[in-house]
């Protein structure tokens, strides 16, 4: 899996930082992606990268997202 593109790191990071009570990661990432005017495909790219880490390392999506940001 290719590393997360630079322009997708910020919405992912913002999603982690602005997490609302009982948000799903998908809702949070979707919100940040829309906020900065990125496309649904960009959201899908972020979520697929997170899901790959989540499956490989058996982490919940939020921890997987954090780990993904720390990897690169």
């Amino acid at each position, binding site marked *: 899996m290719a590393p997360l593109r630079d322009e997708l790191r910020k919405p992912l990071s913002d999603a982690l930082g602005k997490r609302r*009570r*009982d*948000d*799903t990661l*998908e*809702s949070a990432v*979707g*919100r940040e992606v*829309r906020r900065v005017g990125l496309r649904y495909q960009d*959201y*899908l790219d972020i*979520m697929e990268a997170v*899901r790959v880490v989540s*499956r490989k390392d058996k982490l919940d999506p939020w921890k997987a997202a954090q780990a993904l940001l720390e990897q690169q």
Partner: protein
Amino acid sequence: MRVYVVDNGGQWTHREWRVLKYLKVETKIIPNTTPFEQIGQVDALVLSGGAPDVASEAGRMGNNGEYIDKADFPILGICAGMQFMATHFGGSTGPAVRAEFGRTRLYVDVEDQLFQGVPREFDVWESHNDEVKVVPEGFEVLAHSDTCQVEAMRSLRRPLYAVQFHPEVENTEHGMDIFRNFLRAVEEWHR
């Protein structure tokens, strides 16, 4: 045709499965924690209703988000399944103006595939405290009731359909027709 029912904990998930079986579709109920890759080859999914208040307990909707993201086939969301679909695409849900439980009059605004051949007004069975407040961009409202503005919606870009009411319950008039219409849409999608 193979259509699986994703179990979101609703009281009528089994009815959704039964209706599909009655309509001679290969079907089974799968937990909403099933990884997308383990679902296998399906022609469509039904996201069942559920008890969760998706606005504050969306985590209980398991992998519904991944199903919606990855499916290249039609999906029908029912009740909580619809509310989840709305929030997943940036809409919002919240406490209903008036919670709907029991028989409710539905008014069809758009005779989309889902409502082909059914009357413009008919009674449906409802069971919800919350409702869709903001329809996500790219979705069209298909029906409303006297107290709920979004009783059905569909995506204008993908084969995603959703109803707030419960077509699987016998008390919903034309419920079977709505399921047949969905299956027809599934068939057309795959043609």
